[in-house]
């Protein structure tokens, strides 16, 4: 043996033939909804690359609808196969849970997205540009607003059909978000649905600077919150030595079986646990739009193209609350006494701040933004119940609320004047006299937001408040009804404006939409009334879906 070889053997050793790396075991069937949506999104990108421009719109629309419908069918199939109840399980090597809440929320997200696609595809509201029908999205996103490139793009009749695959990617991320069963999947899903949303926000056809500003704000604040979430994940990993939900829950509960020396060293460190879970919660509360992490909501809601706002307001809320529920009920039930007081405060501040600030708004979209904050507070009251009732009531509320929101924003796209959508409230004066049907439909949505009986808003509000009262949060219920009374004031004010004010001579007109938007609005009204008058079936559904797998 040469000296060089001797020396070499000091720090190397002959490698053994490596074991075959085990392929991860993936239950493709149980992940089908997500996979279908992502698949459709990828195909959409290929269409964008290879189809001629004029064929893209119809191909993309068809693909999105078919993809979402197929994914919804897959969810129904899974639920019918018992995966929501007795066959609930963890899939994809512990990364994704397939259980009642996950399937319910995925179904809700898919339905909402399906309706949102209708509003995305609307092409009759904007006046024709150079003889071609246009939608709400910029002709060419890359062109400088007001520049020559933009004019050329408009003249050439370009449309941003990329919005459909982008939407599908966002939906895919949202499907994973409430089902994520480890913190890393949670983070990845968050990014997967956030990034497409940032892009979508920047794509408005009119008032592009406002739209781009809103996208930048959303992106910057969203990046902050993602960083918080990621840092929290790291701290929790440091605490528990694992990122899986059940693993962390065991350490928190103290039921963990084999305590390694490393774990023994960290699991006594409550600072890691508390700071870590607080930071993860901050990330989620940001997405939910709870005070004090709500600052982005009004600006983004106002600046984003209205169909995107509707989709974002409805679907993001569903996904984010789903993730929040799972985190609090699966990972941190052992810390209930630590997070409940904090969340109490957040819920109260959110309800009151959302309702009070909304009173002073003069823009419909901003008003709906603050109203969404108040509603986040109501839902948090249900989350706080920390009972199975709490889960099912929150699920029900989310389903009911998302359709009302989507419908309301769809109505907002109809009311237009020369500058595009007329979102300033003063322009809505007398709308009820000019086009009674539109105003009546919007009034139905506003009454549902206000929680008037016989609308879905009331059933939902009753469900969450009842769960909160049952979970020992009676004071929250009182604050909740006070906030509801304040909120009722500004919803009613819009109804007053629409029906009892004289129309302005140069006021906006109500555009006649294509069947696409009509379907979206009609569905919104139908769901609002159905869930208000006969909510039992859906409450049952939500009740059966109320158990998390662990």
């Amino acid at each position, binding site marked *: 043996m040469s000296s060089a070889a001797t020396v070499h053997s000091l720090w190397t050793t002959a490698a053994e033939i490596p074991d075959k790396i085990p392929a991860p075991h993936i239950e493709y069937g149980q992940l089908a909804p997500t996979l279908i949506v992502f698949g459709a999104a990828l195909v959409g990108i290929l269409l964008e690359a290879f189809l001629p421009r004029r064929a893209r719109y119809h191909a993309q629309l068809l693909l999105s609808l078919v993809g979402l419908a197929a994914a919804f069918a897959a969810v129904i199939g899974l639920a019918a196969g018992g995966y929501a109840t007795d066959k609930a399980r963890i899939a994809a090597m512990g990364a994704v849970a397939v259980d009642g809440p996950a399937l319910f929320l995925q179904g809700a997200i898919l339905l909402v997205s399906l309706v949102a696609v209708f509003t995305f595809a609307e092409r009759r509201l904007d006046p024709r540009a150079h003889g071609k029908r246009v939608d709400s999205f910029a002709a060419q996103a890359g062109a400088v607003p007001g520049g020559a490139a933009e004019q050329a793009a408009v003249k050439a009749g370009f449309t941003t059909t990329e919005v459909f695959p982008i939407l599908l990617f966002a939906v895919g991320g949202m499907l994973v978000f409430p089902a994520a069963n480890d913190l890393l999947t949670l983070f990845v899903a968050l990014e997967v649905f956030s990034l497409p949303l940032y892009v979508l926000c920047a794509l408005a056809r009119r008032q592009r600077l406002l739209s781009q500003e809103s996208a930048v704000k959303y992106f910057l604040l969203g990046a902050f919150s993602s960083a918080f979430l990621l840092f929290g994940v790291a701290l929790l990993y440091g605490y528990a030595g694992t990122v899986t939900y059940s693993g962390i829950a065991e350490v928190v509960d103290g039921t963990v079986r084999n305590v390694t020396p490393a774990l023994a060293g960290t699991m006594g460190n409550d600072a890691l646990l508390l700071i870590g879970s607080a930071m993860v919660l901050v990330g989620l509360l940001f997405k939910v739009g709870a005070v004090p992490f709500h600052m982005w909501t009004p600006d983004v809601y106002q600046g984003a193209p209205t169909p995107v706002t509707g989709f974002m307001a409805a679907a993001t809320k569903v996904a984010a609350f789903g993730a929040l529920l799972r985190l609090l009920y699966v990972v941190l039930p052992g810390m209930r006494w630590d997070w409940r007081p904090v969340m109490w405060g957040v819920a109260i501040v959110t309800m009151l701040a959302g309702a009070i600030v909304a009173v002073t708004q003069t823009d419909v979209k901003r008003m709906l933004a603050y109203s969404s904050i108040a509603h986040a507070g109501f839902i948090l009251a249900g989350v706080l119940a920390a009972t199975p009732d709490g889960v099912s009531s929150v699920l029900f509320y989310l389903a009911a609320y998302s359709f009302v929101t989507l419908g309301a924003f769809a109505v907002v796209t109809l009311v237009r004047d020369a500058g595009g959508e007329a979102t300033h409230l003063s322009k809505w004066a007398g709308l*009820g*006299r*000019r*086009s*009674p049907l539109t105003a009546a439909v919007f009034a139905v949505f506003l*009454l549902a937001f206000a929680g*008037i*009986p*016989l609308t879905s808003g*009331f*059933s939902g509000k*009753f*469900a969450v*408040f*009842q769960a909160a*009262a*049952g979970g020992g949060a*009676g004071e929250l*219920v*009182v604050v*909740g*009804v*006070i906030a*509801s*009374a304040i909120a*009722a*004031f500004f919803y*009613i*004010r819009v109804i*007053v404006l629409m*029906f*009892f*004010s*004289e129309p302005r001579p140069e006021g906006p007109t109500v555009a006649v939409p294509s069947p696409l938007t009509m379907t979206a609005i009609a569905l919104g009204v139908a769901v609002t009334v159905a869930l208000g008058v*006969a*909510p*039992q079936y859906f*409450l*049952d559904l939500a*009740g059966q879906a109320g158990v998390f797998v662990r």
Partner: protein
Amino acid sequence: MSQVVNAGFPLLTATAAVPALGAVATAAVPAARRTAAKWLALAFSLATLALALVVLVRFEPGGEQYQMAESHAWIADFGVRYELGVDGIAVALIALTALLIPFIILAGWHDADPLAGSDSGSDAGRSYSWRPTQGFFALILMVEAMVVISFEATDVFLFYVFFEAMLIPMYFLIGGFGDRAAPAQFAAGTAGGGDEAAATQRSYAAVKFLLYNLAGGLIMLAAVIGLYAVTADDLGQGTFSLQQIVQARASGDLDLATGTERLLFLGFFFAFAVKAPLWPLHTWLPNAMGESTAPVAVLITAVVDKVGTFAMLRFCLQLFPEASKWATPAILVLSLISIVYGALLAVGQRDIKRLVAYASISHFGFIILGIFAMTTQGQGGATLYMVNHGISTAALMLVAGFLISRRGSRLIADYGGVQKVAPVLAGTFLIGGLATLSLPGLAPFVSEFLVLVGTFSRYPVIGIIATFGIVLAALYVLVLYQRTMTGPVKDEVRHMPDLRIRELVVVAPLIALLLFLGVYPKPLTDIVNPAVDHTLSVVDRHDPKSDVEPVRETEAAK
């Protein structure tokens, strides 16, 4: 269960469903066929009246507490059932509601015509693409349906839903259909500015009405949820059934902590006190009644507000008997303030409709006083008062509406000497006014007397103070009559036509009814009294033994 579920024809549901159907049908009438819409609405209201009369006839005063009951599952998750049932009080009030609506529709026949009607209103220039006439009558029928079902509901949740939902059509009635007369206060040529000012006032009144009642309702929502949580805790399964809760409380299965019961009671009572309205929550009523048309004002005070006082009897007392006793002194004082304060302000009013509104506040004080005196006479009188106040206020207010529509002003000072020009109008106005001040021989006298007697037997001092309300009532009614109807004939009034046939058809039956019930109230008391006895037995209060009798005996023994 002390009820027999009616397996046959769902009469109660039908009584509420007919006006609801009527509302839909009326709203669907094409824009050009306004008159058809009116007749359709009238037909549906008469059909409702017929059904209400069937309910009245089939009701057996001595029978079960809740009769003609219906019960179906509705929202099992919340323990909510679709439960209907009527006791004597409800039967009387349903009959009152069904009786008044046809008159309200007839009286408002021209109130919602899109252009200037036959009256002096100058509303030309409004070009609505909507159908106000159809909407007006459809909304009235919708309110009727919701009021009727509120009277019938024996499930707290069901009651709450319609108690709240009622606000929406009422809100549109107040805000959307103002007084035709208002602009004519100004010169007829410059009606535009007056119109706008009136619209602003009206919108303010509608919003005030809605916010007051919505706030009350939401507080009640918290109490309703609290009730559910309590029953879910104690009974295993949460329930809203009034009878089930009352039974569970009687048998001791459901044991409310004193503090909880009081809080829940306050939550319920707050909503009803806003609706009734009780001082100091009354301020929405004068605005709402002043700005709306006379028929809608009647609808508010004679029909909708009765739901508040009715609910105090049915829900507050029966669900929370202990807390009711606890709160009685405070409520009695508040109702006393209502009586005197309402009457004093009525004396000082310059606006006819606001005067009637404040008079109503005073009368609602009497009703609440009677309810919480917790004696048979008191509560029987209060129930009777609800019916009689409905009829008498309807008579007075509708005639006042006819008067206002002729002159185009609500101000008392604008009238004078009307009785020389329009004697029939003045005569009916006088009878309505005399009924309001409870002249013996007219229906309200019986009820007011009973309330005062019932109160006096337990709380003599309060009874004495309440009597001042009657004195003040004489003052505001007679002064109103004197200023408007007597004296020299004013120029603007000189060519005022007397009551037309349609208007006579509205007023005459009401006056006949006032006279009949004033002389012979027995049919009504027979229906009401068993229900009142039952309520009192739940509250566990008995009439105080008269301590006059023993004294006499001892005197005699000497």
